[in-house]
Protein backbone atom coordinates (compact mmCIF):
# COMPACT_ATOMS: atom_id res chain seq x y z
CA UNK A 1 0.00 0.00 0.00
CA UNK A 2 2.88 2.36 0.72
CA UNK A 3 3.35 3.34 -2.85
CA UNK A 4 3.17 7.14 -2.61
CA UNK A 5 6.09 9.50 -2.28
CA UNK A 6 7.76 10.02 1.05
CA UNK A 7 6.26 12.97 2.91
CA UNK A 8 7.88 12.63 6.32
CA UNK A 9 11.40 11.54 6.97
CA UNK A 10 12.83 11.40 10.48
CA UNK A 11 16.53 10.73 10.47
CA UNK A 12 18.59 9.80 13.55
CA UNK A 13 16.24 11.43 16.04
CA UNK A 14 17.20 11.23 19.68
CA UNK A 15 16.06 13.05 22.75
CA UNK A 16 17.56 13.01 26.21
CA UNK A 17 16.48 14.75 29.39
CA UNK A 18 19.66 14.97 31.42
CA UNK A 19 20.71 11.37 31.96
CA UNK A 20 17.43 9.89 30.73
CA UNK A 21 17.20 8.97 27.07
CA UNK A 22 13.62 9.11 25.83
CA UNK A 23 14.41 8.43 22.17
CA UNK A 24 17.47 6.93 20.52
CA UNK A 25 18.37 7.08 16.82
CA UNK A 26 14.88 6.91 15.41
CA UNK A 27 14.59 6.61 11.62
CA UNK A 28 11.09 6.65 10.21
CA UNK A 29 9.59 7.24 6.76
CA UNK A 30 5.96 7.99 6.11
CA UNK A 31 4.51 8.00 2.60
CA UNK A 32 1.63 9.95 1.13
CA UNK A 33 -1.78 8.56 2.07
CA UNK A 34 -0.25 5.83 4.21
CA UNK A 35 -1.75 4.75 7.52
CA UNK A 36 0.84 3.67 10.05
CA UNK A 37 0.14 2.11 13.42
CA UNK A 38 2.61 2.70 16.23
CA UNK A 39 2.77 0.26 19.11
CA UNK A 40 4.91 0.02 22.21
CA UNK A 41 4.51 -0.04 25.97
CA UNK A 42 4.29 3.13 28.03
CA UNK A 43 7.55 5.05 28.05
CA UNK A 44 8.73 3.41 24.82
CA UNK A 45 9.10 6.80 23.13
CA UNK A 46 5.94 6.99 21.00
CA UNK A 47 4.67 10.29 22.37
CA UNK A 48 8.21 11.67 22.48
CA UNK A 49 8.43 10.95 18.76
CA UNK A 50 5.15 12.77 18.04
CA UNK A 51 6.25 15.65 20.28
CA UNK A 52 9.49 15.99 18.34
CA UNK A 53 7.85 15.88 14.93
CA UNK A 54 5.28 18.51 15.92
CA UNK A 55 7.75 20.80 17.64
CA UNK A 56 6.70 20.40 21.28
CA UNK A 57 10.13 18.94 22.02
CA UNK A 58 13.31 19.85 20.22
CA UNK A 59 15.29 16.73 19.29
CA UNK A 60 18.77 16.48 20.83
CA UNK A 61 20.09 15.18 17.52
CA UNK A 62 18.65 14.28 14.14
CA UNK A 63 16.54 15.93 11.47
CA UNK A 64 12.89 15.90 10.46
CA UNK A 65 12.01 16.56 6.85
CA UNK A 66 8.44 17.12 5.72
CA UNK A 67 7.67 17.30 2.00
CA UNK A 68 11.31 18.02 1.32
CA UNK A 69 11.78 20.89 3.76
CA UNK A 70 13.54 20.70 7.10
CA UNK A 71 11.10 21.26 9.97
CA UNK A 72 13.46 20.28 12.80
CA UNK A 73 13.19 22.64 15.74
CA UNK A 74 10.21 24.59 14.44
CA UNK A 75 7.61 25.59 17.02
CA UNK A 76 4.27 23.74 17.11
CA UNK A 77 2.49 26.75 15.61
CA UNK A 78 4.94 26.74 12.71
CA UNK A 79 4.78 22.99 12.22
CA UNK A 80 0.96 22.94 11.96
CA UNK A 81 1.16 25.65 9.30
CA UNK A 82 3.31 23.33 7.16
CA UNK A 83 0.57 20.70 7.19
CA UNK A 84 1.48 18.37 10.06
CA UNK A 85 -1.23 18.26 12.73
CA UNK A 86 -1.81 16.08 15.76
CA UNK A 87 -4.30 14.97 18.35
CA UNK A 88 -3.51 14.31 21.98
CA UNK A 89 -3.56 11.36 24.33
CA UNK A 90 -5.42 13.57 26.82
CA UNK A 91 -7.65 15.75 24.69
CA UNK A 92 -6.52 19.39 24.76
CA UNK A 93 -9.70 21.42 24.86
CA UNK A 94 -10.99 24.73 26.24
CA UNK A 95 -12.86 23.57 29.31
CA UNK A 96 -15.27 26.50 29.59
CA UNK A 97 -16.27 26.71 25.93
CA UNK A 98 -18.86 24.83 23.90
CA UNK A 99 -18.15 22.26 21.18
CA UNK A 100 -19.30 24.67 18.49
CA UNK A 101 -17.06 27.42 19.87
CA UNK A 102 -14.13 25.00 19.69
CA UNK A 103 -14.69 24.45 16.01
CA UNK A 104 -15.24 28.14 15.36
CA UNK A 105 -11.97 28.97 17.10
CA UNK A 106 -10.14 26.24 15.20
CA UNK A 107 -11.52 27.50 11.91
CA UNK A 108 -10.77 31.11 12.82
CA UNK A 109 -7.21 30.35 13.84
CA UNK A 110 -6.20 27.84 11.20
CA UNK A 111 -8.03 29.29 8.21
CA UNK A 112 -7.47 33.00 8.71
CA UNK A 113 -4.02 34.46 8.29
CA UNK A 114 -4.76 37.04 10.93
CA UNK A 115 -7.36 36.87 13.68
CA UNK A 116 -10.01 39.55 13.43
CA UNK A 117 -10.16 42.23 16.12
CA UNK A 118 -13.77 43.29 15.64
CA UNK A 119 -15.44 41.10 13.02
CA UNK A 120 -17.38 38.38 14.83
CA UNK A 121 -15.92 34.89 14.87
CA UNK A 122 -19.39 33.44 14.78
CA UNK A 123 -20.61 34.10 11.23
CA UNK A 124 -23.25 32.02 9.45
CA UNK A 125 -20.61 30.82 7.02
CA UNK A 126 -18.22 29.72 9.77
CA UNK A 127 -21.03 28.09 11.67
CA UNK A 128 -22.08 26.10 8.62
CA UNK A 129 -18.54 24.92 8.15
CA UNK A 130 -18.14 24.09 11.85
CA UNK A 131 -21.38 22.11 11.99
CA UNK A 132 -20.44 20.24 8.86
CA UNK A 133 -17.14 19.20 10.46
CA UNK A 134 -18.93 18.18 13.64
CA UNK A 135 -21.42 16.14 11.63
CA UNK A 136 -18.60 14.33 9.86
CA UNK A 137 -17.21 13.35 13.24
CA UNK A 138 -20.69 12.37 14.50
CA UNK A 139 -20.75 14.89 17.35
CA UNK A 140 -22.99 17.61 15.94
CA UNK A 141 -25.70 16.89 18.50
CA UNK A 142 -23.29 18.12 21.22
CA UNK A 143 -22.59 21.47 19.50
CA UNK A 144 -24.09 23.58 22.28
CA UNK A 145 -22.58 21.68 25.21
CA UNK A 146 -19.66 22.92 27.31
CA UNK A 147 -16.86 20.38 26.89
CA UNK A 148 -16.20 19.81 30.59
CA UNK A 149 -19.66 18.14 30.76
CA UNK A 150 -19.06 15.69 27.88
CA UNK A 151 -17.95 12.04 27.90
CA UNK A 152 -14.39 11.07 26.88
CA UNK A 153 -15.38 9.68 23.47
CA UNK A 154 -16.91 12.97 22.35
CA UNK A 155 -13.91 14.91 23.62
CA UNK A 156 -11.50 12.69 21.72
CA UNK A 157 -13.49 13.12 18.53
CA UNK A 158 -13.57 16.89 19.00
CA UNK A 159 -9.83 16.90 19.66
CA UNK A 160 -9.23 15.07 16.39
CA UNK A 161 -11.76 17.15 14.47
CA UNK A 162 -9.93 20.31 15.54
CA UNK A 163 -6.65 18.85 14.32
CA UNK A 164 -8.13 18.21 10.87
CA UNK A 165 -9.56 21.69 10.33
CA UNK A 166 -6.37 22.74 8.57
CA UNK A 167 -6.68 19.77 6.18
CA UNK A 168 -3.25 18.46 7.09
CA UNK A 169 -1.26 16.24 4.78
CA UNK A 170 -0.02 14.27 7.78
CA UNK A 171 -2.01 13.61 10.91
CA UNK A 172 -0.44 12.19 14.05
CA UNK A 173 -2.95 10.66 16.45
CA UNK A 174 -1.65 9.98 19.94
CA UNK A 175 -3.76 7.15 21.36
CA UNK A 176 -7.08 8.18 19.81
CA UNK A 177 -8.95 5.49 21.73
CA UNK A 178 -7.37 5.85 25.16
CA UNK A 179 -9.85 6.66 27.90
CA UNK A 180 -12.73 5.57 25.66
CA UNK A 181 -15.03 2.73 26.69
CA UNK A 182 -14.11 -0.56 24.95
CA UNK A 183 -17.38 -0.84 23.02
CA UNK A 184 -16.89 2.68 21.65
CA UNK A 185 -13.34 2.14 20.40
CA UNK A 186 -14.16 0.57 17.06
CA UNK A 187 -16.96 2.99 16.12
CA UNK A 188 -14.65 5.89 17.01
CA UNK A 189 -11.82 4.55 14.85
CA UNK A 190 -14.30 3.84 12.06
CA UNK A 191 -15.40 7.48 12.05
CA UNK A 192 -11.90 8.90 12.30
CA UNK A 193 -10.28 6.64 9.74
CA UNK A 194 -13.16 7.15 7.33
CA UNK A 195 -12.49 10.88 7.39
CA UNK A 196 -8.75 10.50 7.06
CA UNK A 197 -8.97 8.11 4.13
CA UNK A 198 -11.46 10.43 2.44
CA UNK A 199 -9.11 13.39 2.88
CA UNK A 200 -6.19 11.35 1.47
CA UNK A 201 -4.01 12.46 4.36
CA UNK A 202 -1.25 10.25 5.69
CA UNK A 203 -1.79 9.18 9.26
CA UNK A 204 0.34 7.80 12.04
CA UNK A 205 -1.60 6.58 15.05
CA UNK A 206 -0.46 5.25 18.40
CA UNK A 207 -2.57 2.38 19.68
CA UNK A 208 -2.41 -0.26 22.38
CA UNK A 209 -5.20 -2.47 21.05
CA UNK A 210 -3.70 -4.92 18.50
CA UNK A 211 -7.10 -5.62 16.93
CA UNK A 212 -7.50 -1.96 16.07
CA UNK A 213 -3.95 -1.84 14.71
CA UNK A 214 -4.66 -4.86 12.51
CA UNK A 215 -7.95 -3.38 11.41
CA UNK A 216 -6.68 0.00 10.20
CA UNK A 217 -2.90 0.13 9.73
CA UNK A 218 -1.09 -0.51 6.45
CA UNK A 219 2.19 -0.72 8.28
CA UNK A 220 3.29 -1.00 11.92
CA UNK A 221 6.19 0.50 13.81
CA UNK A 222 7.05 -0.99 17.19
CA UNK A 223 8.86 1.13 19.78
CA UNK A 224 10.83 -0.25 22.69
CA UNK A 225 12.87 1.74 25.18
CA UNK A 226 13.18 4.78 22.94
CA UNK A 227 14.19 2.77 19.84
CA UNK A 228 12.39 1.44 16.81
CA UNK A 229 12.25 -2.30 17.38
CA UNK A 230 10.53 -3.25 14.15
CA UNK A 231 9.02 -1.49 11.13
CA UNK A 232 7.12 -3.24 8.35
CA UNK A 233 3.87 -4.83 7.17
CA UNK A 234 1.39 -5.44 9.96
CA UNK A 235 1.56 -9.22 9.90
CA UNK A 236 5.36 -9.37 9.91
CA UNK A 237 5.79 -6.95 12.79
CA UNK A 238 3.12 -8.53 14.95
CA UNK A 239 4.71 -11.93 14.35
CA UNK A 240 8.23 -10.69 15.15
CA UNK A 241 9.67 -12.54 18.17
CA UNK A 242 11.09 -9.48 19.86
CA UNK A 243 7.87 -7.55 19.33
CA UNK A 244 5.85 -10.43 20.79
CA UNK A 245 8.17 -10.57 23.77
CA UNK A 246 8.66 -6.87 24.58
CA UNK A 247 5.60 -5.13 23.19
CA UNK A 248 2.63 -7.41 22.72
CA UNK A 249 3.46 -9.43 25.83
CA UNK A 250 3.27 -6.32 27.94
CA UNK A 251 0.05 -5.26 26.23
CA UNK A 252 -1.61 -8.56 27.13
CA UNK A 253 -0.35 -8.04 30.64
CA UNK A 254 -1.90 -4.58 30.60
CA UNK A 255 -5.25 -5.88 29.45
CA UNK A 256 -5.24 -8.43 32.26
CA UNK A 257 -4.49 -5.76 34.82
CA UNK A 258 -7.39 -3.71 33.59
CA UNK A 259 -9.80 -6.65 33.65
Amino acid at each position, binding site marked *: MSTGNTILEAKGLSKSFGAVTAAKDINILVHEGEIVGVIGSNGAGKTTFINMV*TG*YLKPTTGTITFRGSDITGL*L*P*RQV*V*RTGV*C*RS*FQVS*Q*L*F*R*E*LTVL*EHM*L*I*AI*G*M*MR*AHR*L*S*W*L*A*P*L*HTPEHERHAREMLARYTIEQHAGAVVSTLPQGVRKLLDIA*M*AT*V*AEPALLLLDEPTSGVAIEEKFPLMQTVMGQIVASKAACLFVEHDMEIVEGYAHRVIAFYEGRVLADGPVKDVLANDEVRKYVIGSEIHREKEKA
Partner: protein
Amino acid sequence: MLRDRSTLALAIVMVALVVAGPFLPAWLRFVGTVALANALAVLGLLLLIRTGLVSFGQGLYYCIGGYAAGVGGKDLGLTDAFALLALGIVASGIISAILGLLLCRYREIFFAMFSMAFSMILYGLLSKSQKLGSTDGFNVVTPTFLGYAPDGANVKVWVFGLAVVLAFGVGIVLHQHLRSGMGYASEAVRDNEIRVEYLGVSAQYVVWWKYVLAAVLAALGGGIQALASGHVGPEMAYWTTSGEFVFIALLGGTAHVGAIISAAVIFEFIKTWVTQISPYTWQMFLGIVLLVIIMFLPKGLWSLLARMRRAS
Protein backbone atom coordinates in the same frame (compact mmCIF):
# COMPACT_ATOMS: atom_id res chain seq x y z
CA MET B 1 -24.42 46.95 14.76
CA LEU B 2 -27.28 48.60 16.65
CA ARG B 3 -29.33 45.46 16.16
CA ASP B 4 -27.32 43.99 19.02
CA ARG B 5 -29.28 44.69 22.22
CA SER B 6 -26.23 45.29 24.39
CA THR B 7 -24.75 47.76 21.93
CA LEU B 8 -28.06 49.57 21.69
CA ALA B 9 -28.42 49.74 25.47
CA LEU B 10 -24.88 51.07 25.90
CA ALA B 11 -25.46 53.69 23.20
CA ILE B 12 -28.76 54.83 24.74
CA VAL B 13 -27.25 55.18 28.22
CA MET B 14 -24.30 57.05 26.73
CA VAL B 15 -26.52 59.61 24.97
CA ALA B 16 -28.76 59.96 28.03
CA LEU B 17 -25.78 60.66 30.30
CA VAL B 18 -24.24 63.20 27.93
CA VAL B 19 -27.56 65.03 27.73
CA ALA B 20 -28.11 64.85 31.49
CA GLY B 21 -24.54 66.00 32.26
CA PRO B 22 -25.19 69.78 32.54
CA PHE B 23 -28.18 69.24 34.85
CA LEU B 24 -26.53 66.93 37.38
CA PRO B 25 -25.39 68.30 40.76
CA ALA B 26 -21.63 68.94 40.74
CA TRP B 27 -20.77 66.26 43.33
CA LEU B 28 -22.70 63.61 41.41
CA ARG B 29 -21.01 64.60 38.17
CA PHE B 30 -17.61 64.36 39.81
CA VAL B 31 -18.27 60.93 41.32
CA GLY B 32 -19.61 59.83 37.95
CA THR B 33 -16.52 61.07 36.10
CA VAL B 34 -14.17 59.27 38.49
CA ALA B 35 -16.29 56.12 38.23
CA LEU B 36 -16.05 56.17 34.44
CA ALA B 37 -12.31 56.86 34.57
CA ASN B 38 -11.99 53.73 36.69
CA ALA B 39 -14.33 51.89 34.35
CA LEU B 40 -11.92 52.56 31.46
CA ALA B 41 -9.03 51.05 33.41
CA VAL B 42 -11.12 48.05 34.45
CA LEU B 43 -12.35 47.49 30.88
CA GLY B 44 -8.67 47.05 30.06
CA LEU B 45 -8.26 44.68 32.96
CA LEU B 46 -11.27 42.77 31.65
CA LEU B 47 -9.25 41.90 28.53
CA LEU B 48 -6.48 40.48 30.69
CA ILE B 49 -8.78 38.59 33.04
CA ARG B 50 -10.54 36.97 30.10
CA THR B 51 -7.09 35.84 28.98
CA GLY B 52 -6.69 34.25 32.43
CA LEU B 53 -4.35 36.91 33.76
CA VAL B 54 -4.86 39.00 36.89
CA SER B 55 -2.78 42.17 36.93
CA PHE B 56 -2.14 43.78 40.29
CA GLY B 57 -0.37 46.62 38.53
CA GLN B 58 -2.79 48.46 36.24
CA GLY B 59 -2.14 51.47 38.48
CA LEU B 60 1.18 51.76 36.65
CA TYR B 61 -0.56 52.83 33.44
CA TYR B 62 -3.33 54.71 35.21
CA CYS B 63 -0.58 56.80 36.78
CA ILE B 64 1.31 57.17 33.50
CA GLY B 65 -1.88 58.42 31.84
CA GLY B 66 -2.47 60.90 34.65
CA TYR B 67 1.10 62.18 34.77
CA ALA B 68 1.30 62.41 30.99
CA ALA B 69 -1.71 64.73 31.02
CA GLY B 70 -0.17 66.67 33.91
CA VAL B 71 3.27 67.01 32.35
CA GLY B 72 1.75 67.86 28.98
CA GLY B 73 0.10 70.88 30.57
CA LYS B 74 2.87 71.82 32.95
CA ASP B 75 5.97 71.40 30.78
CA LEU B 76 4.76 71.26 27.20
CA GLY B 77 2.16 74.01 27.48
CA LEU B 78 -0.65 71.88 26.06
CA THR B 79 -4.21 72.45 27.21
CA ASP B 80 -6.27 70.47 24.72
CA ALA B 81 -7.92 67.53 26.46
CA PHE B 82 -7.50 65.25 23.46
CA ALA B 83 -3.81 66.06 23.12
CA LEU B 84 -3.28 65.47 26.85
CA LEU B 85 -5.01 62.10 26.66
CA ALA B 86 -3.09 61.21 23.51
CA LEU B 87 0.19 61.81 25.34
CA GLY B 88 -0.87 59.20 27.91
CA ILE B 89 -1.84 56.76 25.20
CA VAL B 90 1.54 57.11 23.49
CA ALA B 91 3.52 56.88 26.73
CA SER B 92 1.61 53.88 28.04
CA GLY B 93 1.71 52.22 24.64
CA ILE B 94 5.49 52.45 24.43
CA ILE B 95 6.14 51.36 28.00
CA SER B 96 3.67 48.48 27.90
CA ALA B 97 5.03 47.31 24.55
CA ILE B 98 8.46 46.93 26.18
CA LEU B 99 7.35 45.51 29.54
CA GLY B 100 4.91 43.29 27.70
CA LEU B 101 7.78 41.48 26.02
CA LEU B 102 8.89 40.30 29.46
CA LEU B 103 5.46 39.81 31.01
CA CYS B 104 3.91 37.86 28.14
CA ARG B 105 6.15 34.95 29.14
CA TYR B 106 4.57 34.73 32.60
CA ARG B 107 1.20 33.57 33.86
CA GLU B 108 -0.78 33.30 37.07
CA ILE B 109 0.87 34.52 40.26
CA PHE B 110 4.05 35.53 38.45
CA PHE B 111 2.14 37.80 36.11
CA ALA B 112 0.17 39.22 39.02
CA MET B 113 3.24 39.93 41.15
CA PHE B 114 5.53 41.22 38.40
CA SER B 115 2.89 43.67 37.26
CA MET B 116 2.53 44.79 40.87
CA ALA B 117 6.30 45.17 41.21
CA PHE B 118 6.49 47.40 38.13
CA SER B 119 3.80 49.73 39.43
CA MET B 120 5.53 49.91 42.82
CA ILE B 121 8.76 50.92 41.08
CA LEU B 122 6.98 53.82 39.42
CA TYR B 123 5.42 54.75 42.76
CA GLY B 124 8.87 54.77 44.35
CA LEU B 125 10.36 56.86 41.53
CA LEU B 126 7.60 59.46 41.56
CA SER B 127 7.62 59.70 45.35
CA LYS B 128 11.28 60.69 45.19
CA SER B 129 11.09 62.92 42.14
CA GLN B 130 11.30 66.56 43.33
CA LYS B 131 10.52 67.86 39.89
CA LEU B 132 7.16 66.08 39.79
CA GLY B 133 6.17 67.15 43.29
CA SER B 134 7.31 63.92 45.02
CA THR B 135 4.62 62.46 47.30
CA ASP B 136 2.33 65.48 46.89
CA GLY B 137 2.10 65.31 43.12
CA PHE B 138 1.11 68.47 41.26
CA ASN B 139 -1.85 70.29 39.73
CA VAL B 140 -3.10 69.68 36.21
CA VAL B 141 -4.07 72.46 33.80
CA THR B 142 -7.68 73.31 33.06
CA PRO B 143 -8.33 71.63 29.73
CA THR B 144 -9.74 73.11 26.53
CA PHE B 145 -11.61 71.10 23.92
CA LEU B 146 -10.40 71.46 20.32
CA GLY B 147 -9.96 75.20 20.74
CA TYR B 148 -13.10 75.72 22.79
CA ALA B 149 -12.43 76.87 26.37
CA PRO B 150 -15.51 76.49 28.56
CA ASP B 151 -15.64 78.84 31.51
CA GLY B 152 -15.60 77.92 35.20
CA ALA B 153 -17.82 75.03 36.23
CA ASN B 154 -18.63 74.16 32.62
CA VAL B 155 -15.19 72.58 32.22
CA LYS B 156 -16.26 69.77 34.52
CA VAL B 157 -19.40 69.23 32.46
CA TRP B 158 -17.25 68.78 29.41
CA VAL B 159 -14.85 66.44 31.16
CA PHE B 160 -17.84 64.41 32.32
CA GLY B 161 -19.17 64.27 28.77
CA LEU B 162 -15.78 63.17 27.51
CA ALA B 163 -15.60 60.46 30.17
CA VAL B 164 -19.06 59.18 29.23
CA VAL B 165 -18.30 59.08 25.52
CA LEU B 166 -14.94 57.39 26.05
CA ALA B 167 -16.10 54.81 28.60
CA PHE B 168 -19.24 53.84 26.71
CA GLY B 169 -17.55 54.13 23.34
CA VAL B 170 -14.77 51.81 24.47
CA GLY B 171 -17.44 49.59 26.02
CA ILE B 172 -19.28 49.27 22.72
CA VAL B 173 -16.09 48.52 20.79
CA LEU B 174 -14.92 45.98 23.37
CA HIS B 175 -18.31 44.29 23.40
CA GLN B 176 -17.80 43.75 19.69
CA HIS B 177 -14.20 42.68 20.21
CA LEU B 178 -15.03 40.03 22.82
CA ARG B 179 -16.88 38.03 20.16
CA SER B 180 -14.24 38.48 17.46
CA GLY B 181 -11.40 36.11 16.61
CA MET B 182 -8.97 37.87 18.93
CA GLY B 183 -11.66 38.06 21.60
CA TYR B 184 -12.17 34.30 21.59
CA ALA B 185 -8.41 33.85 21.39
CA SER B 186 -8.25 35.26 24.92
CA GLU B 187 -10.51 32.59 26.31
CA ALA B 188 -8.68 29.95 24.32
CA VAL B 189 -5.35 31.03 25.84
CA ARG B 190 -6.88 31.08 29.31
CA ASP B 191 -8.20 27.53 28.96
CA ASN B 192 -5.45 25.79 27.01
CA GLU B 193 -2.31 27.34 25.57
CA ILE B 194 -1.04 24.10 24.11
CA ARG B 195 -4.11 23.79 21.92
CA VAL B 196 -3.74 27.42 20.85
CA GLU B 197 -0.15 26.78 19.76
CA TYR B 198 -1.30 23.70 17.84
CA LEU B 199 -3.88 25.86 16.07
CA GLY B 200 -1.02 27.90 14.68
CA VAL B 201 -1.33 30.91 16.98
CA SER B 202 1.21 32.24 19.45
CA ALA B 203 -0.27 32.50 22.95
CA GLN B 204 2.38 35.09 23.83
CA TYR B 205 1.30 37.22 20.89
CA VAL B 206 -2.27 37.22 22.20
CA VAL B 207 -1.13 38.04 25.75
CA TRP B 208 1.18 40.81 24.55
CA TRP B 209 -1.56 42.56 22.60
CA LYS B 210 -4.06 42.31 25.42
CA TYR B 211 -1.48 43.67 27.84
CA VAL B 212 -0.76 46.69 25.63
CA LEU B 213 -4.45 47.38 25.06
CA ALA B 214 -5.17 47.10 28.78
CA ALA B 215 -2.34 49.54 29.45
CA VAL B 216 -3.65 52.09 26.98
CA LEU B 217 -7.16 51.90 28.44
CA ALA B 218 -5.78 52.32 31.97
CA ALA B 219 -3.84 55.38 30.78
CA LEU B 220 -6.99 56.81 29.25
CA GLY B 221 -8.74 56.34 32.59
CA GLY B 222 -5.83 57.96 34.42
CA GLY B 223 -5.92 60.91 32.02
CA ILE B 224 -9.65 61.45 32.63
CA GLN B 225 -9.11 61.19 36.37
CA ALA B 226 -6.37 63.84 36.15
CA LEU B 227 -8.57 66.22 34.15
CA ALA B 228 -11.53 65.66 36.47
CA SER B 229 -9.71 66.18 39.76
CA GLY B 230 -7.18 68.71 38.45
CA HIS B 231 -4.43 66.90 40.33
CA VAL B 232 -2.16 63.87 40.02
CA GLY B 233 -0.07 62.10 42.65
CA PRO B 234 2.05 58.96 42.95
CA GLU B 235 -0.73 57.12 44.81
CA MET B 236 -2.23 56.55 41.34
CA ALA B 237 0.48 53.91 40.90
CA TYR B 238 0.15 52.53 44.42
CA TRP B 239 -0.98 48.95 44.89
CA THR B 240 -4.29 50.04 46.41
CA THR B 241 -5.30 51.69 43.11
CA SER B 242 -4.54 48.54 41.13
CA GLY B 243 -6.25 46.48 43.80
CA GLU B 244 -9.42 48.53 43.46
CA PHE B 245 -9.47 47.80 39.72
CA VAL B 246 -9.23 44.07 40.41
CA PHE B 247 -11.97 44.46 42.99
CA ILE B 248 -14.30 46.21 40.52
CA ALA B 249 -13.73 43.49 37.92
CA LEU B 250 -14.57 40.77 40.44
CA LEU B 251 -17.56 42.72 41.73
CA GLY B 252 -19.10 43.04 38.28
CA GLY B 253 -17.91 39.82 36.72
CA THR B 254 -16.18 39.45 33.38
CA ALA B 255 -19.08 38.18 31.31
CA HIS B 256 -20.08 41.55 29.86
CA VAL B 257 -18.71 45.07 29.48
CA GLY B 258 -21.92 46.39 31.04
CA ALA B 259 -21.04 44.49 34.21
CA ILE B 260 -17.73 46.32 34.42
CA ILE B 261 -19.16 49.80 33.88
CA SER B 262 -21.99 49.20 36.37
CA ALA B 263 -19.59 47.79 38.94
CA ALA B 264 -17.29 50.81 38.56
CA VAL B 265 -20.22 53.15 39.22
CA ILE B 266 -21.53 51.13 42.18
CA PHE B 267 -18.01 50.96 43.58
CA GLU B 268 -17.42 54.71 43.43
CA PHE B 269 -20.70 55.54 45.14
CA ILE B 270 -20.12 53.04 47.93
CA LYS B 271 -16.58 54.33 48.33
CA THR B 272 -17.76 57.92 48.62
CA TRP B 273 -20.33 56.90 51.21
CA VAL B 274 -18.18 54.54 53.30
CA THR B 275 -15.14 56.82 53.41
CA GLN B 276 -17.39 59.60 54.67
CA ILE B 277 -18.91 57.68 57.55
CA SER B 278 -15.76 55.76 58.53
CA PRO B 279 -12.48 56.76 56.86
CA TYR B 280 -10.29 54.12 58.51
CA THR B 281 -12.34 51.07 57.66
CA TRP B 282 -12.70 51.46 53.90
CA GLN B 283 -10.04 48.88 53.05
CA MET B 284 -11.37 46.48 55.64
CA PHE B 285 -14.81 46.85 54.09
CA LEU B 286 -13.32 46.15 50.65
CA GLY B 287 -11.47 43.12 51.94
CA ILE B 288 -14.57 41.62 53.52
CA VAL B 289 -16.72 42.21 50.43
CA LEU B 290 -13.95 40.72 48.27
CA LEU B 291 -13.90 37.54 50.35
CA VAL B 292 -17.69 37.31 50.24
CA ILE B 293 -17.64 37.65 46.43
CA ILE B 294 -14.95 34.99 46.05
CA MET B 295 -16.83 32.60 48.32
CA PHE B 296 -20.40 33.10 47.21
CA LEU B 297 -20.44 34.95 43.89
CA PRO B 298 -17.32 33.96 41.93
CA LYS B 299 -18.75 35.27 38.67
CA GLY B 300 -19.70 38.66 40.06
CA LEU B 301 -22.94 40.59 40.37
CA TRP B 302 -23.66 40.12 36.67
CA SER B 303 -24.18 36.39 37.22
CA LEU B 304 -26.82 37.26 39.82
CA LEU B 305 -28.61 39.35 37.23
CA ALA B 306 -28.34 36.60 34.61
CA ARG B 307 -29.68 34.08 37.11
CA MET B 308 -32.65 36.29 37.95
CA ARG B 309 -33.42 36.81 34.31
CA ARG B 310 -33.38 33.08 33.68
CA ALA B 311 -35.63 32.43 36.68
CA SER B 312 -38.29 34.93 35.60
